[in-house]
């Protein structure tokens, strides 16, 4: 007997490769989106800092814009630098 698979329709869910579940700023799941967005994934990406903390891009930008002097990671208070 031989079984030939023509097409395999699979189901998968995507997820961010991050070391946390929720965004530290908005407390929403990374796999969801920030409060301002409607659609997750490409439209509401994550960004990583050099301190290895990550946030929704929209959240951290908002945070950084609100910082007057120096820009710190809201989690570890190190200076915020985008990874890469």
């Amino acid at each position, binding site marked *: *007997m*031989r*079984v*030939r*698979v*023509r*097409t*395999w*329709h*699979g*189901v*998968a*869910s*995507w*997820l*961010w*490769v*991050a070391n946390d579940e929720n965004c530290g700023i*908005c*407390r*929403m*799941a990374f*796999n*969801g989106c920030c*409060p301002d967005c*409607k*659609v*997750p*994934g*490409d439209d509401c990406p*994550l960004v*990583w800092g050099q301190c290895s903390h990550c946030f929704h891009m929209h959240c951290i930008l908002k945070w950084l814009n609100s910082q007057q002097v120096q820009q710190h990671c809201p989690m570890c208070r190190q200076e915020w630098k985008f990874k890469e």
Partner: protein
Amino acid sequence: MPLDRDPAAPKRSAAPVSAGMRPRSRTAPLRLPAPPAAPGPGPAALRSPAVCPRAAAPAQQCAPRPQTRRVPPAAPPGPALPAPPPPRRGAARMEPPAGAELSAAWNTLSTALVPPAALGLAVPRSDAAQPLKDAELRAALDILRRYDLHSVVEEWFVEVLQMDLQANIAPEFWNGIGQHENTAEEPQCSSLLLDAFGLLRRRLDPYLNSLELLERWTEAGLLLGTGAQTLQEKVYTMFKAILFFSTTKSFQEMIQQFYGRTFRIYMRQWKKGEEGRSERESSMSEDSDPEEGGGDSALCTGCSSKREQCWCPKAMEQFQQLNDILHRLHLLERVSADAVTTILHRMIEERMEQRCRGEYERSFLNEFQEWIEKVIGWLSRVFLQDGPLARSSAEASSTLKRWRCHVRRFFYHSYASMRIEELFSIIRDFPESKPAVEDLKFCLERTNQRHQLLSSLKSALETRLLHPGVNTSDIITLYISAIKALRELDPSMIILEVACEPIRKYLRTREDTVRKIVAGLTGDAEGSDLANELSKADPVTLENGQESDDDISEPGDWVPDPVDADPGNSSSKRRSSDIISLLVSIYGSKDLFINEYRTLLADRLLHQFNYNAEREIRNVELLKLRFGEAQMHYCEVMLKDMADSRRINANIRDEEEKLPEEERPPFSLVAVILSSEFWPLLKEEKLELPEKVKEAMEAYSKKYEKLKAMRTLNWKYHLGLVDLDVELADRTLSLSVSPVHAAIILHFQTKSTWTLTELSEVLKVPVTSLKRKMTLWLQQGVLREEPQGVFTVIEEEQKDQVEKVVLIDSDEEGDSAMASQADQKEEELQLFWTYIQAMLTNLESLSLERIHSMLKMFVMTGPVVTEIDLQELQGFLHKKVRDQQLIYSGSVYRLPKNCN
């Protein structure tokens, strides 16, 4: 209806006369003064004719009875006398003046006014009975007036009449009627009836003639009149009182039979006339009226006797005569009104029963209106005399108007009752039954049967619909029909609201209600009511708390709510609600529906892998109009996921095609990539796929990771659909199966015999569920189970082998990829549990209300709002108590000691 008998009339026949007709105050003075002392000089003078009557009597060829002669004529007022009043016929004119004159006048008058038999006299020969001239009577009356005796004439007349009625006429009449017992035949019976009444009329005619005369005199001022009641009224009341104060049952039956018969004959004749007039009409009515028009049968439809013996014309003649008599005696209402009313009611009911019951698709109002006019024609025969005797038109039309009003009202009432009784079926057949609904609406506006309708419909619903034997979808269908039909019936929607409350209540107890409603809303069936309703333009948005009474467009159109409306609901909201909003409001929350739709949508998307989501996109758009943008956001993301997946798949396939032949994957893997946060919770099932498949999936993940930086895929191995060909020695099967099935059969490639336990180990699927999955392959004839628990490939089909029927587990079909609602709720509540634990750790013990309010404050304000009501929380906490994770005592909850 018109019951003329004085309700206070006493039972004894004589009593009404003395109590009701003659004021006591008048009786007394008449009775008390001794006869001789009565009117001035009269007594002495009057006595003379009484003393020497003999001289006069022979001259008059009359045979007066001696003993009555002795009664002093001074007491002509009969009322005071127990026996028939003194006859003083004859002799008078021969008497000398003064007393003689008076006596003569009295005799003239009395003999003229009442028939001799009533005075106890022998019936005179016919030549003596010739009527006295008016002038002579007037002269006699003048003499009485001179002696002031004219005041007693009327009293005396009434008394004589009463005596005669009691003693002779009534027994005679009832004797005549009583003969009915011996006659069985209907024609005889009615002629007997007529005879009895004819006799009655003959007996009473003299009185009536005199009555007219007296009446004329009263009008001319010659007599005093009889107080508030005219003499005529008194006399007619007396007829009724003495003759008919109680009627026997057989008499009533006779009357009823008589009128019923003539009614039928009349209706038939009318129809005949109609036929003669217009051939076309007759054929129409013939069609609709087979039971009445059937002219060919051996029996006459009018009198239901053989054609040759038909006595219809005779019956109609009798009918006319009887009506004349009754009319003359003013007994028409008393004798026939009851019978006529009964007949009409019976006829209306019969006709309605024959024609309208179960027939909802046309309106009967006009038809019956016409028919009632016919009936009125008959009534006019009864109550108005056609021809010269016709009464003044004003009176006639008012009587007819009264009857028409009554007949119509009765028709509306019984028609409405009938429709109310059938309302359940009418609703079921809506919109075909729209004419019936409109009829009912028309009738309801004229009768006061709202309450009857509500209670009857409610109980019909409860007995016929709301029991476990009925499908939820059938209940919903009927509810939708009810909404449509009752909205037609009552635009204020009160009836709907009140009568359908039991349906709503009952639907709340059914688990699959929401699912069925949502399925109906977005269903495949094109003609589905709900789907049509959903796609209607200008939907009512299901926002809460926006309604106000001010926004009614035309103040002039405002109609107050009926009294049974629930004042808690504003009328504008009620009026504006449509089917969907009513259905959704069964549960009072739209979230439930949106969640259900999400689950349904997820199921559909994951079961149809052709990405044909167009219809779903349309549904989502339509639902967005109803439920608002925000609520449908999740569904939009789901649909977007499908579109994205298609793009990614295309991308990856393009890439694969660039690869050289040998590096390409052995089969094409197409993935649906979900944004897990936006999909309902997927059922978790363990399944280990064969290496080859897993490799392909990993390769796909790699490509995906390359495409989308920092993202990876989490495969749901058990979900999906596999198209495969099973190539056996003598045949090839092409199938689309679930991944589990595919995995099973792939394993049989390497080894043709597996035991259930071995397979279960390899696939990591529990034996019980695996066994169920095996049935597909057994059924397809690819595997056989021999012995129990050992499966082998059937390479070559044995043609002669009896086909084994293997039943597929029915729940296989209904398997949803989604976790059940209950599971999801459990998951949500788990979120609360951490909070509750934290609360109790800090505050030691808390009451249920306290926990709820704190949860509300801290948890339910988050962006992902999960609501929990008090009951749910209580249930949840009690479950925790049962699991010994919580202690409940003194109405507060605390954590067990060892838990910290």
